């Protein structure tokens, strides 16, 4: 999933040779704009998934993984 989103983001970046003179910081900002959606979606999916897992773990009475080894 994360890979597919990244692959599509890469299409934006098939660069023609540019004049490497000005501010390289702009590229860092634009890249964040391009991949922010993918990363936020990925973070949400993971949080959602961990909540589902926690829910079923609680149902089955198992210890939540974050408490292991405490």
């Amino acid at each position, binding site marked *: 999933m*994360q*890979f597919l989103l*990244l692959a599509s*983001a*890469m299409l934006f*970046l098939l*660069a*023609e040779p*540019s*004049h*490497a*003179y*000005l*501010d*390289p*910081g*702009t*590229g*860092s*900002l*634009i*890249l*964040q*704009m*391009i*991949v*922010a*959606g993918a*990363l*936020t979606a*990925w*973070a*949400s999916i993971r949080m959602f998934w961990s909540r589902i897992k926690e829910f079923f773990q609680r149902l089955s009475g198992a210890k939540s993984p974050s408490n292991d080894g405490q």
Partner: protein
Amino acid sequence: MTGRVVSNSDAARVRHAPRREFGSFRDPSGFLVWRDGEIFRVVTRYYQREFEHATASGLFQSAIDAGLMLPFRLSEVSAAELAPGSLEASDAVAVLKPDRVPMITYPYEWSFSQLKDAAATTLRLHLLALKHGMLLKDASAYNIQFVDGRARHIDHLSFDPVSAHPAWPAYGQFCRHFLAPLLLMSRVDLSLGRLSVAHLDGVPLDLASRLLPWRSRLSPSTQMHIHMHARASEKYAASRGLTGKSARRLSDRAFEAFATSLLETVERLKPLPQKTEWGAYYEDTNYSDAALDGKKALVRRFAERVAPRTIWDMGGNNGAFSRVVCDLARLVVCMDVDPRAVDENYRTCRQSKIGNILPMLVDLTNPSPAIGFANKERATLADRGQPDLVMALALIHHLAISNNLPLPYIAGYFASIAPALLIEFVPKSDSQVQRLLSSRPDIFPDYHETGFLDAFSSAFDVEKSQRIPGTERTLHLLRRRPAWLDTGAAGS
């Protein structure tokens, strides 16, 4: 802003006029001033709102409590006293007194795990700032120092309100200063951390992208943060700022997702399992267990006679002997040329919670130079501290025989660093020296105990010598001759 601070060694505690720290010229938010061996940070009115926000929101306190940031207090000293007559002093709104940093080290002197911990500290501090409505506006590796065994951020003026930025302004700098060298050390070669000497503002991403193996493109995080990042930097270098769609501001969740992705990437990285010259040194010596214990006891006894506050253990490998003497001093800086040995030392000290050993990657035949603008931004190794004792154990044969260094030069170098020297002489008959000589002609007629003592006698007096039990080696405690500083130092 790069927050270079020079070590506040005790020897520097002489009364003299305040002196502006050269390395702190990049940021109008404030500047650093030395006075009587202590450093102060002056905050100017250009940073007043941000400083007040970081204080009132509790960010400073949380960062200090979490061990991410060097503690500081507000000082009674006025800016006018610190920078008399300067225009900037009239702009001052606060003077901070940060805690002492006993020895400054630079990223090119850190092992893999040290750089990794420094990167994690930077990201955790940024994430903490986001929770307080601020962000870390720069991610320079020079803003991190190891104090009490932990990587801590030392620049207290690095925060900006998150609302002032469309995206994380330090993203590029973070990848150049931390992620690129870490990936290169993890995938290509452990020695590539030294690239930072040549690239003061971090490893250029296009260079990192070309050096990394092709399969690194299959890792989504490396693809994004290095390869795509390098391409984006090239492609948009000529564009004039953000326009149209790209001028949107990231959501707060996106800011956090970005930093979390970087933190997870960093935490997953492992050092390359690479064989190095000295990485398994203590598994391959001619010391029996009894002889090693005897040497440890002797080293400790000799070091106790010096009552040192600071020790430099030069060629200290994985810190085995630094740990023998660390409770005798406030700080032991353990330097070695081998990245694996330095890394092992750092990890051992961290696990054992030893806070006063500072492992450092240093090639004694080519120690860190002064670099940066006017060669004044980053100091040489020798300019960063004045130890009371240098330990040079099982080192002399590598300097004299492997590196062809004349014994008087070696004596002069040690004498220029410290007033006391604990040195082990390893004779030609020793099997380790025989190994060195087996691959080179023996052009070292003066390399014997008497020749060694002769060569060192111009700079040092012998206080005590003793054969290490069960070996052919001798341990010497030498004291620098007072006259050497006046005469010998100039000629060495």
